[in-house]
């Protein structure tokens, strides 16, 4: 088992290395150039000034040379300087990553906490009123675009009812501390978390439902029932644990998706996270910011996969990796 995970980790490192190569060369080969995009429409800029700026950022060297330089710095923990912000990429990511993490983690937690009981109920009460309503709403949730859903929530709960703020992560210029600060952030986060959570929950519910349905058709459930066990015990002790196995895999791999998927929600609610920065960096061809975020997301994907494998072992004692 340990051997298996060591092997997996080694493989992951190789994969990550491959990702840096592909992403680095792709973004450098894409047309457009950060200095041009930034300085082109400023009167009086001369070609010498633009060249000097490029040289000072090392952008005048051939791409493979730039890659080697980048990797050298990367091993030292230096992700380079942002061209747009004129600040270290690590700082830029650091300032925003926890905001995104808070948002997506709250949404993930909420969607799991809701999706499992709802999914189980909808499976055990198959073709009941509850099941139909849940199924219908789940389809609505899967198909509704987050920006549309977000604006509807803003319109109803922030503008018309005035219960929640329209934008931001905290009251501007506040001097809150301790619990007040947390409550302020929670108040601002309520709407974006709802958007992310409900949209995720919709698909999780479907997974839980179909997976439980599969399980309760199996022989051992019939055996359990034949033994005269209570229905609750049958479902929650015997069926649920097996039914959750595929769901765990999906949740593990959606971790990274949640990070990148929050881009739109963050933009709508002006949440100061990574999502907004990715978009801006790509438009401006801010190479090192793009690289930094790509590497970060790649690490998350790889970690997510590892984590879901580990979780699988936890929920399914039959699985033995070799």
């Amino acid at each position, binding site marked *: 088992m340990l051997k298996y995970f060591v092997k997996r980790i080694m493989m992951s490192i190789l994969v990550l290395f491959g990702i840096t190569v592909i992403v680095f060369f792709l973004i450098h080969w894409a*047309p457009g150039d950060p200095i041009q995009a930034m300085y082109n429409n400023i009167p*009086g800029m001369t070609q010498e000034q633009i060249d000097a700026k490029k040289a000072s950022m090392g952008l005048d060297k051939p791409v493979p040379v730039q890659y080697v330089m980048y990797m050298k710095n990367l091993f030292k923990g230096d992700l380079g300087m942002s061209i747009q912000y004129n600040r270290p990429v690590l700082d830029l990511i650091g300032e925003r990553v926890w905001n995104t993490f808070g948002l997506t983690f709250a949404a993930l937690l909420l969607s799991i906490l809701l999706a499992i009981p709802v999914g189980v109920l909808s499976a055990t009460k198959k073709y009941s009123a509850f099941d139909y309503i849940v199924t219908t709403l789940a389809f*609505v949730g899967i198909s509704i675009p987050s920006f549309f859903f977000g604006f509807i929530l803003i319109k109803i709960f922030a503008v018309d009812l005035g219960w929640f703020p329209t934008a*931001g992560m905290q009251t501007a210029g506040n001097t809150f501390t301790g619990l007040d600060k947390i409550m302020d952030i929670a108040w601002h986060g309520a709407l974006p978390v709802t958007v992310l959570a409900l949209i995720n929950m919709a698909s999780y519910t479907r997974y839980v439902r179909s997976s439980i349905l599969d399980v309760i058709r199996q022989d051992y459930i019939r055996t359990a029932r034949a033994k005269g066990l209570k229905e609750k015990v049958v479902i929650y002790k015997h069926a649920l644990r097996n039914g959750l196995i595929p769901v765990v895999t999906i949740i593990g791999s959606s971790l990274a998706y949640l990070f990148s998927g929050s881009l739109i929600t963050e933009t709508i609610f*002006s949440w100061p996270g990574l999502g907004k920065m990715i978009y801006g960096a790509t438009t401006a061809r801010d190479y090192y910011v793009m690289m930094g975020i790509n590497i970060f997301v790649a690490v998350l994907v790889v970690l997510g996969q590892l984590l879901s494998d580990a979780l699988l072992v936890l929920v399914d004692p039959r699985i033995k990796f070799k």
Partner: protein
Amino acid sequence: MKKKKWVCLALSVMMVVSVILSGCGKKSDGGKTKEGKEAAGNELAGNPAAEAGNVLRYICTAPPGVFNGILYTATYDQYICDMVFNRLLNYDSETMDFKPELAESWEVDEENNTVTMHIRKGVQIHNDLGELTAEDVAFTLQMLCCPEYDGPRYSNFANIVGAAEYKSKTADTITGITLYTKAPEDPLDVVYSDEEEDPYKITLEFAPFTTSNLHAMTGYILPRAYYDVDSYDEFVALNLKPVGTGPMVFNQYVIDQYVELDKNENYWDGAPKLDKVIYQCVSDDARIATMQSGAADICEVRNVDEDLVQIDEMNFVTVDSVQGNTFAFIRFRMDQELMQDIRIRQALAYAFDRAGFVESYTGGRSTLTYAPAPKDAGAYPSEDEGMYPYDPDKAAELLDEAGWKLNESDGYRYKDGKKLTLNYTGISENKNDSMKTAVMIENYKAVGIELIATFYDWATYMDTVRTDDKTHIYGYAWSMSPDNYQNAVLFQKGSLLNDGQYDNPEYDTLLEEARVELDVDKSNELYKQCFHILNEDVPVIYMNDYTTPWVINNRVKNVIVSTFLPWTYNIKNIEIVQ
């Protein structure tokens, strides 16, 4: 049977939900009229921002955070700089003439070479860092000319005597900058004259002094006491904590969330009336909703058509529209063989119903322009300059003359067996570009020209329009400067902004004359001639300017919005009714 019943139930639940949702949109339309907006005296009745206190809350896209008066490039950053720093000279908001700010008075010598400035006394630097003197002005100029400086403003001062040598490290002092004090222990790299002791006086020697230099004097001054640090990296590191002499004192920037500024109690021109200014970062799409909820006081309208409808529903705001400083036009790549024929260029101008497009695209809010200058500027040519009205027959005539014959079978023109096909390059995010080309393709087809439009994202577009061998025509948008030279330079040979490769020595000579002419009327006359040449030569066809509406909560008074000045221009006098 049972199944069906539940399907019906579920569907009706969905319908009810959607009715509720769509109903919400209509709830607020009843009974509110425009007049309510102008009603005086009851600014706070029904105003959701009534309880917000003496704090002005502006909302906009998050600023990049280069809050440095000489380094910033984004307008969003300029707003912060404009409150924290002072300028040497400023513009009068009515006439756009220069008026004193930090420089109380200034004289130019007869040869147009030397400018002497007298700095205002009693200007206190924030955080009790002492008084601002001529030395701070010299320090700011030295930073602009130092070899490490990589911001966009060096060229504004590159004609100071000795600046180029200092920049290229061949000289240790900028000989064109003189201060009138004894050299301190840690002197600047400028000349210290001991002929008379006057810490508020500075002379700058130019070769020669131009109107562009004068406009550049409206730049911000950084106090040496705070910004004179050991290395350039440390200087840049101060970007997120600016210190100046302006009406507001920088408090903090919570990244991507808000900037907080406090009032400067010791401001030389009297303390501002506001206690605080908050610049809150809100995405474009949520701006109007935020205004509606009362969480903001002022913002610029971005999605004009959609937003103005929503704004109509609010009775506690005023809309203040000005001519924006951005305008759109279509440029020709003059290095392309096809575009070298003036008849083709003129035909392109005649064949496109520009006035009709502008009218319908902007809903009548903007009109066609005829020069790269604002309509009320002295250099704007008179209206009869409005050449090339929509005239497809005239266009067809010109193309016939140029030897492009109409092929009746497919409706396109050919010459030597080659079809008249032109490539248009535009920006994919730009709505104006895509709407415009749709009309152009139709209009040009009517006279036998095939137009093929390609759109790229901004960065790719920038790379493409000037270097590819495909583009003949490209869409362009330009933020005008009050300095005409900065607009006219788009067509000067050798300028990086001349990506159309327009080359006309007559134009360049006139432009150079206009640039060094300090007499405003004379220089306007010269610029008029420059713009006339452009209209004759057609390296460009002009489209519309943009109207920028600002929404301002009625509790806020004295905001001045203008074409060229930031909304923060009058920040000291902005008042909140409580």
